[in-house]
């Protein structure tokens, strides 16, 4: 008996602590360690994402939604053109897919998947988002061939939209083209926007073509400028054909 009494006298405190800790541990286990999580939250509060970071997230989300709206708008426009709902710019326009590129290395042409069955005629003007692409030179029942404005044989009368200086735009077989101005000292600077001129017999006036990239006014005979074309013609997949903008069949020769 004395032995048990001495053991209790020495270890009762330890026993109590052991029981307490075990019961607390059991309690925690039963409550799913809810209190620990609450404590964790309190401790980690200074390190949690603060208000400015939240604002940043909201801004990013807004931006993302804006981009989605833009994308859907353009898709909607393209699909409308596809279906033939031509409420886009002019009453007589149809959308057409680009189904082929030039069949040799000299002519800058594309082949479209709409032809005379859809009302396309030779001379119809072809545009893409951004501006002018070219004009139809041959049609079959369901395809049409387009001579691009990047082809060196295609010459277009153009106007600088800011200063109304006029010139002739000639393709350079790439993404660029050159303008030869009529005047000796045209009012032009880099960045100016180029549109088709009212004197052009092949294209309706006022279609965007590109913008001036560099000037070469020291050219001996005629001042020249290099133009960045507005439409990345190599990557275009869908174009719009203006059916009513029918034009004459002959090409404009230089100086007219």
């Amino acid at each position, binding site marked *: 008996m004395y032995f048990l009494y001495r053991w209790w006298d020495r270890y009762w405190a330890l026993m109590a602590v052991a029981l307490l800790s075990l019961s607390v541990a059991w309690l925690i286990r039963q409550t799913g360690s809810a209190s620990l999580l609450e404590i964790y939250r309190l401790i980690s509060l200074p390190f949690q994402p603060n208000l400015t970071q939240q604002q940043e997230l909201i801004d990013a989300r807004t931006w993302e939604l804006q981009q989605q709206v833009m994308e859907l708008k353009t898709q909607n426009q393209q699909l409308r053109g596809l279906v033939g709902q031509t409420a886009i710019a002019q009453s007589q326009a149809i959308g057409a897919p680009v189904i082929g590129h030039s069949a040799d290395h000299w*002519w800058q042409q594309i082949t479209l998947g709409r032809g005379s069955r859809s009302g396309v005629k030779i001379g119809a003007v072809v545009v893409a988002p951004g501006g002018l692409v070219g004009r139809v030179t041959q049609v079959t029942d369901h395809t049409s061939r387009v001579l691009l404005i990047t082809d060196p*044989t295609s010459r277009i009368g153009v106007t600088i939209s800011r200063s109304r200086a006029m010139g002739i735009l000639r393709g350079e077989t790439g993404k660029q083209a050159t303008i030869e101005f009529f005047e000796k000292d045209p009012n032009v600077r880099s960045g100016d926007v180029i549109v088709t001129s009212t004197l052009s017999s092949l294209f309706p006036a006022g279609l965007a073509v590109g913008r001036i990239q560099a000037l070469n006014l020291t050219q001996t005979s005629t001042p020249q400028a290099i133009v960045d074309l507005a439409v990345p013609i190599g990557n275009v997949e869908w174009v719009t054909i203006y059916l009513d903008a029918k034009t004459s069949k002959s090409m404009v020769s230089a100086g007219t």
Partner: protein
Amino acid sequence: MLKPLSQWSPLALEALNWAITVSSVVLCTLALPLRLPGMELTEIGPNWLLVWVVAWSVKRSALQGAVAGVALGLIQDGMTELYPTHTIGLALVGIITARLQKQRFVEEDFISVALIVFGMAIIAETVMAIQFSLGSLVAPGTMASRPLSNIWLHHQQTALSSAILSSLWAPVVYYPLKRWWEQLEQTQV
């Protein structure tokens, strides 16, 4: 299953040969406006008709090569513009390919055909460039006229890419046609 070729009647064999030959030309023509990823270099594709003319002329006479060149040149004219014509260049390609002393090269090798296509592509592009230059000298202001500097700059850029691409893709056309024509020869002997 199909009967082995040796059991076909000569007439049917001839008809089959023509069908295969013509359909290969049609396929090559339809591949011209196509630009698949890996099949273009600076927006230029292989000159499939040129590859076909080389494959045809490698084991044939100069006259046969010339006729094939003219025929396929006419087709390519129809696919682009009528003037300047592609017939001259392709006919020249057919003649030169048929005349080449191929014994000097490795016998029956894709490398030698690829080399021939490489050289021929440059020749064909040069013929086109010369025609454009003549056109701009003789009849300035017409459809085919371009500035001389533009023509030869463009020639430099395209001739090399065209030659590289066409020679790399040459086996695609050459190998099946070669196999077919060899089999036909064996059964006819």
